[in-house]
């Protein structure tokens, strides 16, 4: 970023937290996001506890949430997260495309199936960043 390089104004990086029970998925997501200069990964979580802790301590703007993350309740999955931070934007990710409706109905801002190309995830990230 030119402005940051000039050292005048600190860039406003969008802080993201990654929540998926598999390390390889988190590692790949981190790689994808770290290529984008507007985004920063502030924490990773492998279950619901570490996700809530991460939200509490690292103050992310966006959570990339695996909808099947272990430890999340079957319904109202976003309630505890939004109790900690009502402004948190959530992108629901899932291996099961059929989770789309449930996740959007429960208040996720976007849904990306893990069968979709990674570009769709980047589009969702950028569109939430400008909200």
């Amino acid at each position: 970023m030119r402005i940051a390089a000039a050292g005048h104004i600190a860039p406003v990086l969008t802080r993201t937290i990654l929540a998926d029970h598999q390390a390889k998925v988190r590692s790949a997501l981190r790689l994808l996001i770290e290529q984008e200069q507007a985004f920063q990964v502030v924490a990773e979580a492998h279950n619901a506890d570490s996700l809530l802790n991460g939200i509490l301590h690292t103050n992310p703007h966006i959570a990339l949430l695996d909808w099947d993350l272990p430890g999340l309740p079957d319904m109202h999955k976003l309630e505890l997260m939004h109790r900690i931070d009502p402004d948190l934007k959530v992108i629901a990710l899932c291996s099961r495309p059929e989770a789309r409706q449930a996740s959007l109905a429960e208040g996720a801002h976007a849904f990306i199936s893990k069968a979709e190309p990674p570009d769709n995830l980047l589009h969702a990230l950028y569109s939430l960043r400008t909200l």
Partner: protein
Amino acid sequence: MTGTSSKTASALTASQLNLEELLNVIIDAVIAFDHDQRILFFNKGAETIFRCTAEDVLGKRLDVLLPGRYVTLHRSHFTEFADGPIASRAMGERRPIFARTLDGHEFPAEAAIAKLARPGKRAGDVLLVVVMRDITERKRVEDELREKAEQIAVVNERSRLARDLHDAVTQTLFSASIIADVLPRLWERNPDDGRKRLEELRALNRGALAEMRTLLLELRPAALIDADLRDLLKQLAASITSRSRVHVDIEIDGQTDLAPDAKVSLYRIAQEALNNVAKHSGATEALIALSLSPTLVHLIIEDNGSGFDTAVSKPTHLGLDIMNERAAAIGATLNIRSVLGKGTTVKVICASRA
């Protein structure tokens, strides 16, 4: 009852009952016959069930109401009962029984038989009574329910496989597809990092293949019989490494042909043990060691996880009962040693040829 007894409104004496009328309102077939199996009584229920009138069968032998193939067997059972000490029993306790109408229609039936001494006749002459019902409809409903239960089991099994496919193959290919997407840009900026990620991509692809092939075996378990145990275990190690945070190494030593059931059981034990390692142990490393000799097979699965207390663990917990059953089925000895904080070792020894 004598005339001096007081009559209450609710009590009926046997003589006041018209026995034939009573037997004719019963929906079940009631058939009485003598020691020679000659039919002496045939109620209305029997007429309906056997599609004939009493006149058609009275005086005839009971054989006319049986499918031909049961006649001999039935006679021997009948003689045994008629001459034996037991006064009444349910029929068909060992296998379902079948009856036949006069016009040749066969149906499944449920029946009980009883015998009475016949007053005025010579000793040993008895009256036999069979009470029988047609259970065609009940069997049909039972068969339908069984079929439904089987269908539900199939659907559940498919759902489980779909879940496993999503949790394994989809996750792995999703990760691989992200890395492949980023790789060209990454390589331009930092070739070393690019090479590292390319290696990761290759490992992910190999992992996805192993996961898929492991799950295909669940769809077609018969394939286990034709496969080589060494290949199966290598594939299992690669699959668990890919889908969990545990790195599974494998050491194989020796070569011998195994009986199919030994091969399948050893594979299932390894699978159960490694599922435990992946799900519960918190281990980072596990090892499968297989040693094959012409006489003995040793299979060891060990991990560096948290271990469990073997004394308090229930047999159904951690699939221990499944492993024990599998081992017992092939006459193998199974030994599970676990130390809290130090990990678990599962050891199976069996003969190479049963």
